[in-house]
């Protein structure tokens, strides 16, 4: 029995402390180092935050370079495919232009109607956002746990935590981490994402809740609410973070929201430099 216990302790100690010929560190010393780094980072000392911000900027750029092959090869394939589909694409684009021309006429009418209705309601005039920063997506790593992207603009461009991020005016998420030259954007489908939204002709209020899946869901709805498919969901702006009326997606018949922008297909995004009225995260 004692022999077996000795055996166990020898194997245990050896596994923790042994260093091979080419190994400079024992596992034990590295575990201690990892624990120290973890707690320094979690309890957020200023020096560590600055160091982490610098490390983030460097690693994100290396990640961008390292991921170049994965971006180039699908791009070449798409380029060849699109070359052969030019004629068909041209016809489709002509049809789209015609459709947009007719929509443009409608838009002018609706804009005027909207202005008049706002005057009637005597509400605060919501100015269109002109102070925006265009950013390139550096890293779009699809984690099973966190749905976020890294963009190439940071605190140097006056980006702060909480700012909304859009693509083609569609809301895609908000800034949750800023470094000097890069930022992390939490996407709407992340488990940690909660956005107040409004939709349908009754201006129903709800919270858009990310679930880590592709489609976020609507929660905190009125009792006995019946879901209808294809209704556009907008940010309500009640949190003082997102601009009211920013389109997000369309409802499905089971309470999820099909986002207008596929979170896995982001290349360029726009950060709206609106300072949130409260600290986020």
């Amino acid at each position, binding site marked *: 029995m004692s022999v077996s216990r000795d*055996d166990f302790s*020898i*194997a*245990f100690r*050896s*596994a*923790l402390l*042994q260093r*091979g*010929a*080419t*190994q*400079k*560190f*024992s*596992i034990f010393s*590295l*575990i201690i*180092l*990892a*624990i*120290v*780094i*973890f*707690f*320094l*980072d*979690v309890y957020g000392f200023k020096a560590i935050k600055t160091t*982490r911000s610098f*490390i*983030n900027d460097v*690693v*994100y750029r*290396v*990640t961008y370079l*390292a*991921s170049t092959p*994965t*971006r180039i090869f699908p791009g070449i394939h798409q380029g060849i495919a699109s070359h052969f589909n030019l004629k068909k694409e041209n016809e489709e684009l002509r049809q789209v232009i015609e459709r947009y021309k007719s929509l443009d006429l409608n838009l002018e009418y609706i804009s005027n109607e909207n202005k008049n209705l706002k005057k009637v309601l005597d509400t605060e005039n919501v100015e269109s956002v002109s102070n925006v920063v265009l950013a390139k997506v550096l*890293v*779009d*790593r*699809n*984690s*099973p*746990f*966190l749905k*976020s992207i*890294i963009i190439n603009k940071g605190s140097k461009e006056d980006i702060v935590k909480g700012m909304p991020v859009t693509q083609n005016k569609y809301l895609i998420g908000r800034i*949750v*981490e800023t470094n000097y030259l890069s930022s*992390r954007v939490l996407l709407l489908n992340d*488990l*940690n994402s909660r956005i107040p939204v409004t939709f349908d002709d009754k201006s129903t209020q709800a919270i858009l809740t990310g*679930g*880590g*899946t*592709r489609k976020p869901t609507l929660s905190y709805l009125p009792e006995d609410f019946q879901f209808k498919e294809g209704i556009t969901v907008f940010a309500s702006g009640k949190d003082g973070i997102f601009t009211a009326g920013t389109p997000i997606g369309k409802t499905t018949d089971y309470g999820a929201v099909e986002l207008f922008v596929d979170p*896995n297909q982001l290349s360029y995004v726009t950060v709206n430099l609106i300072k949130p009225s409260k600290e986020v*995260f």
Partner: protein
Amino acid sequence: MAKLNIVQKLFAAGPLILLYYLSISEIDTNLEKLFEVFSLNLQIIIIYFWIIKRPNLMGPGHIFLAGLINDVVMGFPLGISSLSYLLVCFVGNYVRNKSVNTTIASDWFTFFIALIFANLLFFTLLNNFSEVAISYAKIGYNTFFTLFMFPVFWLLFNFYKISFIGSQDA
């Protein structure tokens, strides 16, 4: 002869390069576009296999660094992936010290223990010391598929080891 040595060194560095590349690049093993719940932690499989078979190719210093890089890229608190990887490394070392001959079945069983310890530590720390919320269902799927896919990667890595590095185990 010198040329052959460089090629051999490159092959021997293959697992470590793969580990670093998986940590730093956009490449992921989360195939949710094809199958919504499928995700696996290939880094843990790589570390465990090579620590058991060829520990000299996978030093703990490199494992620690790969974990730190992974944390930065994924947005986790620094050191959390390193801790879970080092725990896998520790279990692998222990199993190697205690066993003479290992088979795919015995490695699979001991990998299960390493994976449970590593994921338990990872998610306990994340849950208690971070504001990041994580779906327990996703953790379960990730653990299941990582365990389920281990024999496939065991065979692949074993083939690589026999073909390019040499068949003799550590």
